[in-house]
């Protein structure tokens, strides 16, 4: 394994430890600027809109959505898969890159993990509200009950989802929290004596005192958790893909789905990290911590996973043709030329064409271009899920049942609402907790050498 970026330092500006501490903790210790309040006002409005939409759904029924007898899932599961996908980058960055000793991860892992947790929260909302009767949603959990041997269906991929998502959420949250402990202690130490903040942080930092023994234990736990989280990175989206792959619906029923979905998830997750980091490093003055080298590294991941995704698209079409299965062939023809061709071509443009701009180093190191490209990838990956779900369902086996799908305002509002939740939580995170893992960054100062 080669060293990441041997030529350029991971943290620019020749910072001292003191400087790092001051700069990283500054946002948590000062009054937020006006722009922050404006931003959170917008995201809270989005969240309220989503709250209204969900209330509407819960009180009236799933009929408030645009679904019909043939298309039983659309925005709901599209958004679910989209957010789970977003949630992929965090654990990948913190766990897999940690195990591979990719030190450049230190600047972004905290925020990426936070993003993961928030994204999984958004994702987890959809399986609950998409149910016809969410008030009995707990029946999807293997809870002991008084109804005799009434248990959950272990053959159902939806049940696997329940386990996969909840496990992923718990492990990600614990991993994130453990990683936070040294910084929480620093934050505690900097908090004014006797303040409520200090008391809370004292509890949260679990009595951390920075001793060697603590560090040893910490490193062990962190390594173990990274090992635990690593298979989850692969398993979560594999299982999500099984929701489709184990069905009989042409366009869903494909053995390709697990690797294809995992690659897609990493692709979308990195795109979202890029989008957020490019903005955050600018407005929070972290350009020396999250350097262009970081952005370039992420852009390279984007290019690679984008090409894997493109390859998967090509494979799907090839197999549809090669299988000779008329239903399969029709579904793929219909994807590219049917009533939802606009969605397909939007997906194609965003996911297949966009990454190839990243061959240019200039593009990879120009934040504003990267930002635009990452947004395109986010849009493309949302459309990918929409295309897979809706175009496969709306014209399956019996032409008599073919229908179209048009989303309602309620569905769009729900989706906007999850963005509201995600961004609100992220904005709060930026001002409450250290966005950069200060303790880890200190370890990679001076060109990344320990």
């Amino acid at each position: 394994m080669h060293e990441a970026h041997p030529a350029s330092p991971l943290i620019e500006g020749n910072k001292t430890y003191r400087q790092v501490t001051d700069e990283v903790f500054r946002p948590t210790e000062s009054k937020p600027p006006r722009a922050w309040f404006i931003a959170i006002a917008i995201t809270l409005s989005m969240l309220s809109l989503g709250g209204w939409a969900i209330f509407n759904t819960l009180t009236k029924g799933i009929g408030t959505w645009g679904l019909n007898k043939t298309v039983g899932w659309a925005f709901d599961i599209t958004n679910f898969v989209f957010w789970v996908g977003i949630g992929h980058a965090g654990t990948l960055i913190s766990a897999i890159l940690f195990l591979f000793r990719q030190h450049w991860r230190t600047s972004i892992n905290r925020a990426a993990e936070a993003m993961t947790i928030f994204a999984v929260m958004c994702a987890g909302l959809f399986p609950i509200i998409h149910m016809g009767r969410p008030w009995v949603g707990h029946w999807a959990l293997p809870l002991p009950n008084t109804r005799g041997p009434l248990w959950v269906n272990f053959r159902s991929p939806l049940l696997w989802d329940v386990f996969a998502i909840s496990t992923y959420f718990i492990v990600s949250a614990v991993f994130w929290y453990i990683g936070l402990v040294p910084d929480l202690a620093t934050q505690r130490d900097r908090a004014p004596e006797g303040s409520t903040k200090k008391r809370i942080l004292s509890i949260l930092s679990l009595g951390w005192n920075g001793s060697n023994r603590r560090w040893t234990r910490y490193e062990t736990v962190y390594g173990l958790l990274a090992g635990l989280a690593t298979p989850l990175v692969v398993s979560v989206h594999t299982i999500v893909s099984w929701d489709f792959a184990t069905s009989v619906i042409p366009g869903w029923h494909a053995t390709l789905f697990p690797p294809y979905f995992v690659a897609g998830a990493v692709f979308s997750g990195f795109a979202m990290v890029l989008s957020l980091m490019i903005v955050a490093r600018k407005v929070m003055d972290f350009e020396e911590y999250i350097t262009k080298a970081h952005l370039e590294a992420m852009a390279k991941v984007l290019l690679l996973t984008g090409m894997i995704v493109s390859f998967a698209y090509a494979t799907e079409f090839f197999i549809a043709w090669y299988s000779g299965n008329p239903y399969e062939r029709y579904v793929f023809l219909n994807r590219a030329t049917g009533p939802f061709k606009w969605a397909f071509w939007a997906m194609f443009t965003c996911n297949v064409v966009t990454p190839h701009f990243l061959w240019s180093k200039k593009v990879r190191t120009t934040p504003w271009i990267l930002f635009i490209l990452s947004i395109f990838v986010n849009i493309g990956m949302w459309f990918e899920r929409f295309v897979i779900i809706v175009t496969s369902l709306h014209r399956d086996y019996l032409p008599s049942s073919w229908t179209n799908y048009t989303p309602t305002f309620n569905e769009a509002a729900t989706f906007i609402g999850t963005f509201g939740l995600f961004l609100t939580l992220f904005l709060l995170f930026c001002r409450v907790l250290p966005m950069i893992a200060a303790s880890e960054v200190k370890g990679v100062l001076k060109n990344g050498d320990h």
Partner: protein
Amino acid sequence: MRFWKSIHSKKTPNQRQDEFPEELPVGEPKVGEAVRHLSRRDFFRWSGLGFAVSLATGCDTKKSEKALALLQGQEGQVPGTDLWYSTTCPGCSAGCGAVAKVRDGRPIKLEGNPEDSLSHGGLCPVGQAQVRSLYDGGRLRTPIMADHEAHWADLDRDLVSRFADTKGGNVRVLSGSLGPSQRRAVQAFLGGFKDGKHVTYDALSQSALAEAYERTHGQRLVPAYQLAKADLIVAVEADFLGSWLNPAGFGREYASRRNADAHMSRHIQVESVMTLAGSNADERIRVAPSEAAAFLEHLCSAIEGGTPIRVLDANGKKKAHEIAEALKEHQGRCLVLCGMNDVHAQIFTARLNKALGNEGNTVELARPSLQKQGDDAAVRALIAEMAAGQVDALVVLGANPAYELSAFGFKEAYAKVKLRVALSTMPDETAFASTHVAPDHHGLEAWRDAEPVKGRYRVSQPLLNPLFGTRDASESLLLWAGAPTTAQAWVKSTFALFTSGKTVGFASWDELLQKGGVDLDLPASAPIYKEDRSRTQSEWAALKAESAEYELRLYAKGGIQEGRDAFNPWLQELPDPITKITWDNYAQLSPATAERMKLAQGDVVRLKAKGLADLVLPVVIQPGLHDKAVGVALGYGRTHAGKHGTGVGGDAYPWLGADRHALEVSPTPQKVELACTQDHHNMEGRELVREFALAGYLKDPASARPIDGGVGSPVQPSMYTPHPKGPHHWAMVIDLSKCSGCSSCVIACQAENNIPVVGKDEVRRKREMHWMRIDRYYTGNEQDPQVVHQPLMCQQCDNAPCENVCPVVATVHSEEGLNQQVYNRCVGTRYCANNCPYKTRRFNWFNYDHEDVVERLVLNPDVTVRSRGVMEKCSFCIQRIQLSKATAKNEGRELKDGELKTACQQSCPGMAIVFGDLLDPNSDVAKALSDPKRYQVLGELGVAPAVNYLSKIRNVESAAPASGGHHA
């Protein structure tokens, strides 16, 4: 009346007890409804008195005539069990014998009576939907006088004095085709006036048919057609499977000759619009509406000789000659039908049937049909009289002329009649235009009778006490005539008159009620052909051959028919068997015409003709329509048809008689979305409906067997252990050659399984709830396609894709091969529906309306009413399976094959559905499964459906490839 509730009701002693005098006392007590506190002593005092009174009055032995829902069960009666009563379907004048399932005093399902010699157990969608009409919350509940609710006593007093004042005047009764008792009642009523006359009309008039026989045979009659005896049926503009005369009875007879064997009948349809009958034809010939009569004339000439007066194009001539040759080959065993209300067309038809020797064979004149007694000329004369102010009183009975006779100017003329009495069941257009409304019972609440065919006497008995303050129309008429009697006594006396001096063949009135009717062997002689041909020829020659760019063709749909049941939401939401559109009528145009006019489906057009108000309707592009024809369904656009029927579609009745008239079609900028349940009409080369030509099939039946590995191949090896097997394995076979697509099963299923109505907007969103649907595909050329109908419900797969994906085990496999949906357990993820290759699962998007206290009485208590958020689907009528198994067990015997019928199977006029136990090698279903035509839809998926199909066989030499015939 011995009991009275208040001074008010005491003062109106004739007031009927209304079961729902006001809203039921549910929920919060009303304001001002004080709760009285009763002391303990008072309580015992009153209850003691109540007990004594009930003892004293309970000893009355007088036989009650009321069919009351029992509060306390009788000895021997088990609550929650069904009682079946025979009756006659009140849906139309076909008078199909029916049996009604009565549960705890409420009829909840109407089924064809298998012992009926006319319908043989089939019942059409309208008949199936009658229970819903019965419980319509919008029905008339009290008499109405001068636009105000009135008491019967006041109404009667007022009417009796008014009728007394007009003793010497002109009194008319206008009605639809009535049964014998009601006809007698009308006569008895009119007898009291100096000039009383009974005029009958039919909204879907066949007056010209009767008139034609008057001119050719000297007797006004509608023949009774015997489709079962016909080897060759040539139907011209006659939708005998959908809306013409007696679709259920015809359907059964027709299907009895549609077995794929040497006796299979051949059916040629000549028509301008695509009708249900036309969609089943072996050969279908498109003619312009104005050409149909000429086509018949050419047929006549080709058979009888002579030169036709009218000209047909080369293709029409060729076809007419081909058909004439075919008819000649089947002398005495063929049948020519004509549904046009055009006297010349009907004369040609009568001549053809005469010349071909069909009279006495397939065309029964000695014992004719009495279904359509309407006489258009008499109606015209009546309306002229009314308009001239010469009618003093008009009583309308069992009809809605204010809506249906708008082309004759009824409404304007009606206003000139001083005393206008309507005996309606619904607050319809006529009721609103009348001075007095005496609400009639619904047919299922009343003593009625029918004689749909001469000598075939049918009786209907009330199945429940009238829900509202209504009174039987016969009772009203007889009361006003000063000879009050009960409807029961009246029908009894009719029956006595009917059978006096004849051998009836059974002992008692009770036995008649049990059987539902009796066929009397009346001595009869057929009228002899004696047409004044020169008169016909000169009249026909004098008629201008009117041909125009666009010609209007009015037709009736199988569900809504003439529009009398437009208030019935089941029928409104029933997809039209051809267009699959619900809740609307529309202007049908052929694909070529629409393309020429640059019109798309849903574009709104304005139909214009001289002297008529414009008709604005959305366009429906209908393959198989003649390029000149503009097809518009009657029965829509009603102004007073309750909360469901009012304002649905456009009213084409003013255009009646303008049939075939030139009209102008002009586009408007508007566009509407039609509520259609099927948007895609092409099988896309998929082998969903297999179709073969009879000739080839008979030569080599095995050729129809699906190729191994293809459709219907055996189940592939599985890594899972098979489901545990029980004593039964339920399976179904549907014969596509016998299914006409009439959709009776759809309504039967709706009634049986409490399927909600979702409304037009929800159907537009593709959320109809029908468990049973009929897929209709076109094959071949778009201009002149062939049609196939495929009933589809849950296929009860043995390897059901829905079962393994449910996270909460809400859909499970029974050991009897059923795929069971557990509503209580369902959390509504909809994954099962997504994973169903047949898309037969239905989701409750909202809580659907079952709140109306009257309308919910139609619900079948054996079937759960589903709440929002759960999935539902066909259960193979599991409640019937369980009941039959329990009955067999209680009687200590095995379940017999055929004793258990699903609702769809029972309703099917064509007997296309066979259901039973696969494990019984002698069962009908097991036998049907070994038919070489058997295949499974999407069998190649390995889901092992329990529903199998028999390929459609058309009686042709070589089949047009239906589904492309092979995999693409």
